[in-house]
């Protein structure tokens, strides 16, 4: 696998040459500072862009064109990475040697059309498309409460700190949706195209020179050079543990506990933190799983996820009705034990195995390979081989030192109850 990065002025082109796949994958990242008021608009924008363009007037026409190009797969995703909102638009298609000459370039043209030739007239997006997205998006936002796990997570993060970027709802906000018009959406589009940071990745069995020329020719973006912002979110203010409970009609409690990470070094954030989390709640061998679920039969699911850029660990659990506080005391004890250095060598070894397996897994998917190079670009993290070496050297003392910097911030319980709490 050869990796080349080229500065093409308005954006970086990253080429990963490999014969591991019969497909070529292209992914274009757009990112900007995470502002709450832009989340809904950005989601709206990627939905409407995937519906068609001036060259493909309807979703049906677009889909047929994709199918004719041997099922080129085009998709868009939005997420928040620390202080950034990040959008990835991607294309995956069989290499021309399995289809016909020119198929890949035509596929790129299609992606190019979706991004740079949107269905716009009189400085506004197409009305019919706009209304379609509006209604579907609204229905999605309205049904948010139906998925109790997601709903609890959102409420738990808002209870932690509703002003902080950590609580921004990735899915967006109904009140912001209502403010979007086909005109102001187009203004936002123009802003994204001209002001966002852009990185383009190509992965597959390609010729580096010719792919550079093709991309340069097709993606003529002129973004203003801007100074990058710091992706890392300020740690939460430490205070006494907040406990928030809310009732909802459900058969089960949903528990969210946020743990704040205070004054971590760069090294701690990239290495001991991954191991600490694997031990705490990273999988079926973790303390949370074995204590709360296996030994005490209190939960169907329970796990923890580190969000290193947010300076947070989030514990999530589906707990037997009325037993959440019982689960909380077990969790508190687990955290205390870790702080006091009660970590089996065996657990640490397992956590390292877990991590090195995840590293070996990257090569199994073109998107994972691209993602790992993108993180190097965005956050300046170590490359894969350095990561493996450093992670294997992490000591138990380093994990314990980290454990002492981790504190419960908020306990949020969405309590299952027989009647609707709103009544």
């Amino acid at each position, binding site marked *: 696998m050869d990796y080349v990065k080229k500065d093409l002025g308005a954006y970086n082109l990253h080429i990963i040459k490999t014969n591991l796949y019969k497909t070529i994958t292209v992914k274009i990242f757009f990112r900007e500072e995470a502002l709450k008021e832009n989340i809904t608009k950005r989601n709206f924008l990627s939905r409407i862009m995937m519906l068609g363009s001036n060259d493909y007037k309807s979703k049906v026409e677009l889909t047929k064109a994709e199918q004719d190009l041997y099922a080129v797969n085009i998709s868009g995703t939005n997420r928040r990475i620390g202080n950034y909102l990040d959008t990835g638009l991607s294309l995956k298609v069989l290499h021309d040697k399995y*289809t016909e000459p020119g198929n890949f370039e035509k596929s790129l043209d299609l992606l190019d059309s979706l991004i740079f030739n949107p269905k716009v007239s009189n400085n506004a997006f197409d009305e019919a498309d706009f209304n379609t997205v509006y209604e579907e998006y609204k229905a999605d936002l309205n049904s948010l409460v139906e998925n109790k796990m997601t709903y609890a997570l959102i409420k738990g993060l808002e209870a932690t700190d509703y002003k902080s970027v950590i609580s921004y709802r990735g899915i967006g906000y109904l009140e912001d949706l209502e403010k979007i018009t086909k005109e102001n959406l187009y203004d936002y589009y123009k802003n994204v195209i001209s002001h966002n940071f852009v990185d383009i990745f190509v992965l597959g069995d390609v010729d580096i020179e010719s792919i550079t020329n093709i991309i340069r020719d097709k993606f003529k973006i002129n973004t203003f050079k801007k100074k990058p912002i710091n992706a890392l979110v300020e740690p939460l203010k430490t205070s006494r543990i907040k406990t928030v409970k809310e009732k909802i009609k459900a058969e089960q409690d949903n528990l969210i506990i946020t743990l704040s990470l205070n004054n971590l070094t760069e090294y701690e954030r990239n290495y001991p933190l991954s191991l600490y989390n694997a031990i705490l709640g990273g999988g079926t061998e973790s303390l949370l799983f074995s204590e709360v679920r296996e030994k005490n039969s209190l939960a169907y699911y329970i796990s923890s996820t580190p969000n290193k850029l947010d300076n947070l660990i989030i514990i999530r659990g589906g707990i*037997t009705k009325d037993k959440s506080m019982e689960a909380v005391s077990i969790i508190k004890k687990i955290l205390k034990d870790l702080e006091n250095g009660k970590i089996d060598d065996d657990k640490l070894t397992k956590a390292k195995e877990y991590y090195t397996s995840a590293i070996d897994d990257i090569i*199994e998917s073109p998107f994972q390979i691209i993602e790992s190079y993108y993180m190097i670009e965005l956050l300046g993290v170590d490359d894969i081989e350095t990561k493996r070496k450093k992670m294997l050297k992490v000591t138990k003392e380093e994990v314990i030192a980290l454990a002492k910097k981790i504190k419960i911030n908020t306990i949020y319980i969405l309590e299952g109850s027989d009647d609707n709490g709103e009544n």
Partner: protein
Amino acid sequence: MIMEKIELKKVDKTIYREVLDNGLEIIIIPNESFSKKKNYYFSYGTYYGALTNEFIPVGKSKMTKFPSGIAHFLEHKMFESKSDLKPFDFYAKTGSYVNAFTSYKNTCYVVTGNKKMKENLEYLLTFVNSPYFTDENVAKEQGIITEEAAMNDDNPDYLAFKTISRNLYKLSPYNTPILGTVSSIKQITKSDLYNCYNTFYRPNNMFLVVGGAIDPDEVVKIATDTLSRFKLDNTSEIKVKHYKEPVKVVKEYEEIKSNVKVEKLAIGYKMERNKLPIKNKVVLDLYLNMLISLCFGASSNFREMVRKRHLVSRSGYYFQDVDNIITFMVEADVLNDPVYLKELENYLSNLKIDAKDLERIKKVWISSEVIKTDYADSLVDTVVDDLVNYHKVITNYVELIKNMNIDTMNKLINSLDFTNKAIVKVIPKED
């Protein structure tokens, strides 16, 4: 070792097959020699799932009925072990992943990893052949699975699905969720579990599919050596009760009030399989799935119309295969119920397919057969599906797809009968 070599035609892929003396069928899908990928995938399964609740237990003579949900319960319980080392711990130690799935037709234990292949395969074959059920561990599991059932019941989509299944099928166990019900789960005993285990977890009722960074000869050797340590019975025949599901639906209409914001609609159209013109099951499945793609996929006019007119915000369409019955299922989040239903009925009674569209979707499917060969896990899943549905590996999908034609499709469409249906609506409670 000489094993059967099978070419997957038109996609440049060779796989291997071996049947051990004890009856276990093994399918091996190795990576190409130049591949640098390290992952491997094992799927060790039994042809036993939620559909089988009534059978003659091995060594007994009477047809016996077992509580619904027992296959899934048994799957959970296989993760118990007599020693302190449980499967989850074992695989965690090697940075690998273990899980299991129960469907209506089968139960599979899967392992994914990229190191210690030999130990991991040995252990998979060992733990699935070492049941350890006690009254205590059965009681504990009842707590966990009841939670799982409660979690599902909180989900209105699941509620709609559960209800439509009950209203469609009178006899077929498809009428009950794979998990069972809260009351059936509570009836399960240790001895029930051993009866099910001893009957269905025997090598001649099981399969092992492995793919990725593995050597075929090594896999067969590990499996032979490991299984030789167990006293495995492959003599007696398995006698399972078969149901002849009546064609008529059980209940045509049901409305449930729940705290949903958007109405959930589920419809099932029940049809007799022998009325359909295609007798080959593999080919029939291809045509039925192609029909779904063409009539309800992203390139269909119907989908575009319901979207443009804001009739649904989300919808899914598929065929369910229930022995003598084929059911066309619709699941949707409906924004405008009367209009959507009317349009759907109208569309179904006038289904038409353009030959050009059929050819285009064939191109898509063939591409996907080629792309799939890049991913050992997808190939393993496909082979498992083939075994479960057809009891053999299908080696010529590309050819079968190429042979699909509009005449056969039209004959199939003309034979479909959308008159015998059940409808379930989960609607918002009035405040």
